[in-house]
């Protein structure tokens, strides 16, 4: 990464003959190296080292214990579920304000609210949902008193897979709305008319014209939402304490107090998180390259 940019910088500087042309970017590169790239590399390298400093795969092997694998699995499940539902509901709402015929006055407030809600994550979000769906939360009490439905007796728990997924949707849906609305605006009216004239049904238009065009944006947003949920720490900790062991919570406890009893296993755990989000994003880049081939 750093080598690439340094090499490119050197090359373009040589072409322009003035060496200070690339000096303008040195502060940024230095910042990125010191506070983004090197810290991450530090973790990656640590994952493959013994405490004495020799190369080892033992830390990575240490991840494949039932409890750690279970943490990854529940984390991935929550991230996939919240990203998928976020994409679906967010898409439906964005489609409503762009091509779905909702009145124009809905659009502005919805987009503004999405900007607020997508940034309303972390500790306060957890509080909001505890006050709503917690054991004495508003909705819990209303359902019990008005409809006689006791959701906690029915097995619902805010500190669970579905509980966390519902909470994460509060920032996932708005993020989807914000990202996909411009893409939906980019759908030309002519395409729809052309499809209509050729006798396509609404379903055919969406399946064969609109969705293939939107495919890269949809995938990209999904990957982003996935990483967003997978790395979320604050909401989960404020919501569950440490009763639900998703990966970020385990890692948090490990950094605080070495609960795994092996610092290098902690690096491996963090490395695993990077691998999962990296896979999600590379899958996106690869699929996007493929879909763009079809668009040409």
């Amino acid at each position, binding site marked *: 990464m750093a080598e690439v940019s340094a090499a490119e910088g050197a090359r*373009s500087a040589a072409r322009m003959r003035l060496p200070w042309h690339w000096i303008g970017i040195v502060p940024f590169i230095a910042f990125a190296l010191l506070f983004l790239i090197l810290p991450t590399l530090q973790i990656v390298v640590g994952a493959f080292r013994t405490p004495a400093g020799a190369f080892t795969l033992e830390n990575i092997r240490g991840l494949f214990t039932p409890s750690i694998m279970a943490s990854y699995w529940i984390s991935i499940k929550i991230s996939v579920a919240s990203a998928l539902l976020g994409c679906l509901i967010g898409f439906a709402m964005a489609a409503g304000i762009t091509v779905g015929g909702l009145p124009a006055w809905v659009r502005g407030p919805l987009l503004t609210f999405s900007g607020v809600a997508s940034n309303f994550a972390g500790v306060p979000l957890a509080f909001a949902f505890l006050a709503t*769906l917690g054991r004495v939360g508003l909705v819990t009490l209303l359902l019990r008193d008005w409809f006689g439905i006791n959701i906690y007796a029915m097995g619902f728990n805010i500190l669970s897979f579905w509980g966390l997924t519902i909470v994460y949707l*509060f920032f996932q849906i708005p993020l989807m709305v914000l990202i996909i609305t411009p893409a939906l605006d980019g759908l030309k009216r002519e395409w729809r008319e052309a499809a209509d004239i050729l006798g396509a049904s609404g379903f055919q238009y969406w399946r064969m014209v609109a969705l293939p065009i939107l495919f890269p944006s949809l995938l990209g947003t999904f990957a982003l939402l996935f990483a967003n949920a997978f790395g979320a720490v604050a909401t989960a900790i404020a919501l569950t304490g440490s009763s639900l062991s998703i990966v970020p919570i385990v890692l948090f406890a490990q950094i605080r107090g070495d609960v795994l009893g092996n610092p290098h296993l902690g690096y491996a755990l963090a490395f695993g998180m990077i691998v999962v989000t990296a896979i999600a994003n590379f899958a996106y880049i690869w699929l996007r390259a493929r879909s763009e081939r079809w668009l040409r």
Partner: protein
Amino acid sequence: MTRVWSWVALAVGVVYFALPLIGTVEFSLRKRRGEYSLDAYREVLGDPRFQETFAYSVVMALVTIAFGILLVVPTAYWVRLKLPRLRPVVEFITLLPLVIPAIVIVFGYIRLFNTSSILPLTGSARGTDLLLMFGYATLALPYMYRAVDTGLRTIDVATLTEAAQSLGAGWVTILGRLILPNVLVAVLSGAFLTFAIVIGEFTMAALLNRPAFGPYMQLLGANKAYEPAALAVIAFAITWACMGLIQLATRLQRHTRAQRR
């Protein structure tokens, strides 16, 4: 038919987003038994720990914004003007914080800048504050860079720079008195977004052991019943204010642009 489904989607969304907000407000008023009161708010706002941590986070946010502007505006400008071939690389780097979880980045900080390293930032309180500020700047980087870069796209950087240079302006003058005013609205939206991110940030501050607002909220949540809901309402109001200010800045710009024409 499409319109019906649109209304259904909107209605589902409105219910889903309205309920937690109503629930939180209602819960925050329930502290006094049998009647609604503002006791929880009074308790929170009067808590010296609240005032200290909130002030700490506000200062951190302001410093982060200043640093972010100093870092991002010259870089984005320079890349557009002189190093367009590097743009994909720089853009890729600025997007990395969206991919690498914050908890992993701060874990790397703890390891890289510990007391026995070359740059022992975590050794002192001031050093850790500095490190935390850099961490916040990293978290805000994707938003700040994209905002500024979009702002730069709307002006003709090369021509403006040449005009300024032929009038004898140096780089500091060009950046401070020409580029910055032209992308001010973009910078402001980046700044307010940074503020919204930093003010409630939990993970980095907690793991670096700094007395910020995020860890305070978490601690209160573990110990109190009604005060956390009041805090959530306050935090939501702050986020809302930040986004409102972004909208306001954008509208003011549209206004002045239209007048100029």
